[in-house]
């Protein structure tokens, strides 16, 4: 059994514990849009001096609280659980609260860092700054019957489920509906009618739940023109998922279920 004494520290722990903060100066380039004031979005740069171990959300807060209170974005839990603050950071969908500044800062050239760009996620109507209209996204979620449908008599105690059956759909239960996957999908960018990865992930969570009896109906829905067959396996969604869900694999599993059950 190991004991955590001071001399057994790894370099990583020492770094994590060091109280000294090395502030760096960098620019945050945010795509601002306020339809109350201007018809077109503009890129605005903010110069910040912060500890790069802080989160990008902290940088956004610093702008909002100390420089420009009109900057608008959604956030709540600030540690990657609630899914409020999905945005495009340096062109990639991420949660601002799960992204540390140092991870998107890059290497300085002549002592100057390239600005970190922050934009709203794509494919959904931008309402103000980084806030998008989430209703179409949740509509797609609601359309795949994202709830347990169990036929037959209810047992008095819990329904039984083996450890293996439970593990079968574990990955897709992790979804926090942040929309990072769906809004990273090139198909969705051009066609909002596509269900999108998040809705399929949530259908998958029930299709492969041994307690559920409505898998057929969900497969029927996803067999549509705007269902799983529109997936082009670009893996953008898997890269974007802040929860590490194997999104593309889940979509492929739904496709496979459709093929094996229909043919």
């Amino acid at each position: 059994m190991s004991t955590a004494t001071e001399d057994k520290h790894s370099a990583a722990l020492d770094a994590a514990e060091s109280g000294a903060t090395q502030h760096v100066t960098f620019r945050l380039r945010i795509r601002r849009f306020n339809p109350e004031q201007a018809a077109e979005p503009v890129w605005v740069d903010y110069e910040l001096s912060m500890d790069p171990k802080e989160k990008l959300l902290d940088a956004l807060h610093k702008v909002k609280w100390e420089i420009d209170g009109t900057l608008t974005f959604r956030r709540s839990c600030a540690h990657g659980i609630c899914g409020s603050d999905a945005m495009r950071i340096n062109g990639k969908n991420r949660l601002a609260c799960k992204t540390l500044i140092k991870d998107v800062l890059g290497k300085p050239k002549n002592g100057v860092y390239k600005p970190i760009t922050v934009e709203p996620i794509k494919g959904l109507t931008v309402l103000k700054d980084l806030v998008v209209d989430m209703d179409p996204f949740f509509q797609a979620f609601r359309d795949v019957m994202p709830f347990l449908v169990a036929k037959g008599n209810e047992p008095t105690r819990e329904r039984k489920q083996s450890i293996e059956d439970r593990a079968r759909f574990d990955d897709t239960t992790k979804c926090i509906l942040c929309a990072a996957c769906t809004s990273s999908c090139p198909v969705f960018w051009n066609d909002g009618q596509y269900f999108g990865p998040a809705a399929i992930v949530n259908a998958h969570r029930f299709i492969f739940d041994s307690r559920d009896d409505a898998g057929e109906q969900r497969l029927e829905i996803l067999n549509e023109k705007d269902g799983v067959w529109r997936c082009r396996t670009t893996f953008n969604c898997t890269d974007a998922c802040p929860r590490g869900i194997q999104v593309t694999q889940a979509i492929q599993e739904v496709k496979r279920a459709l093929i094996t059950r229909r043919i």
Partner: protein
Amino acid sequence: MATTETTPGAPENPGAVAPVIEPPRKRTARTPRSTRTNFELFAWLFMRLSGIVLVILVLGHLLIQLYLDGGITKVSFAFVAGRWSNPWWQVWDLVMLWLAMLHGANGLRTVINDYAERAATRAWLKALLYAATVFTVLLGTLVIFTFDPNIS
């Protein structure tokens, strides 16, 4: 400090509220109706299977046409006539024609679905695509079966 504005965005009349920019084909509150067909499933499966078959057919075709027996120089009217007198090559080319055309057409259909934003544009592009496909497939089939080696 807000230091630079990298793109200009000053409004003409600042008082007016601008419309927000909508993405194409936004999902509405209406749930899409189920068509209960397996068309998309078969189309998807067809792309994979026809692709595999086409690899064999097309590579075989290219090998014969361009490489074996003196390569491209041998291809002439007589060569084609000789090949099509054999039902094996007739079927080979017919299958290759149909699969390639359907594979390509379905691929283009997908591209149109993915990239054409307006419903009318989609309909027109697809109509054009289907017409061209049907025309080419029919013409090619006709040629393979009605080919006359004695034409002069």
